């Protein structure tokens, strides 16, 4: 077990307890039955228009996928960074090639209009 993470756990427990306690206590104090109108979602003072379900356009998923792809690629940099001074020129050149591939991918995506909105 990595001892370094013990304080992390302790801290996490502390803040979770604290936040839950705040919400719990406040809801205990401020508990009142809701009226029927209070139960309706707020929408500028009127009945909500249209169906309750809301959909996310497919566009968002495309961007999310791209993000995941690029983010994972970017994560590869971290180990390289830490040992960068030891690797020297070879490490630099190798990473430049990786960079190039990544950037080509990015420009391809931009060119394809995957990031366009209107």
């Amino acid at each position, binding site marked *: 077990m990595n001892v370094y993470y013990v304080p992390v756990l302790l801290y996490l427990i502390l803040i979770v307890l604290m936040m839950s306690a705040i919400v719990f206590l406040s809801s205990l104090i401020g508990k009142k039955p809701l009226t029927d109108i209070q139960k309706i979602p707020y929408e500028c003072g009127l009945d909500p228009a249209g169906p309750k379900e*809301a959909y996310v356009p497919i566009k*968002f998923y495309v961007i999310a996928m791209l993000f995941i792809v690029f983010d994972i690629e970017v994560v590869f940099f971290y180990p390289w960074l830490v040992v960068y001074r030891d690797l020297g020129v070879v490490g630099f050149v190798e*990473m430049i090639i990786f960079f190039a591939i990544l950037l080509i991918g990015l420009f391809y995506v931009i060119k394809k209009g995957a990031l366009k909105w209107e």
Partner: protein
Amino acid sequence: MSDTLIFVIISLIKSVVVVALLLLGVAIGVYLERRILGFIHLRYGPNRCGPFGILQTIADGIKLFFKQDITLPVTERTLYVVAPIIAGVTALFPFVAIPFADKVLPDAINLFGRTIDLTQYSMNRGVIADLPGGILFILAVSSLSVYGVLLAGWTSDNKYSFLGGVRVTSQMLSYELFLGVSIMGVLMVTGSIRMTEIVEAQKHMWNIVYQPVGFILYMIAGFAEACRTPFDLIECENELGSGFNTEYSSMKFALFYLAEYIHIITISAIAVTLFLGGWQGPWLPSGLWFIIKVACLFVFFIWVRGTYPRVRFDQLMSLGWKYLFPIAMANLIVTGVCVLIS
């Protein structure tokens, strides 16, 4: 055995101190924001509540605490209730790995006739957990803050909240990428991803000197991550009403409010640690230096809020992907070349 116990006790004390300071920081921060915005707008700002209005945030807090708490009969009730807690927790969490002072305890203490070495596991330092992969941990944890907002927006059964939730996701997708790349230059210069080592490497010169572009990029990403003007898209009053927190009242709403300000403090703190020399500074105690630097960046956040309009959400996206990400990459390459030459 007692070593472990002391370790636990020291960590707990540090945790409590950090949380207390953060909450105090939020209270002061909210007050500061209202006063400084007032100053920018040529008005007073709150000045009735206590001397100079310094009790304003306290009054707000007490009022919110005693306000009626609504729990709507939404479909995903558990998530709806848990969302503010998640928001609060994830906002507070990154601070576990941020060093806020140099040494807060002596190297060794004598307890019940035994000498305990406090240097192990950095117990004596001003950081709760001196993680070996500190910056990675912070990046990972601070990205989680999206979930609180997302869940709040998603489960509220309110279309304004829903749009806020969708926006926070897309906003995250835009800044997270170049946020990661923008700090890589620092890591490259320092050669470490441990927060304390990054700070100590800046003993002679702050990283901002080597990495000005990286700092600017990080701050832009920070504004986006903290959802502050000009990137306060998720709860911009003028478009989405109150955005993701529309259906929350009382302390649940207060937690979102709290999370927003803790976020600013966290981002300022990370920026200070990575670029502005952390707790390093002459004359004054290290913790004070840290607080001063963070406070300066906090004020900068407020200043920007008083100055800039808000960008559109597709503009943020194209800004992040088309401009700032390639710039961050280029910055990294240039840094690499410089490090190679030196």
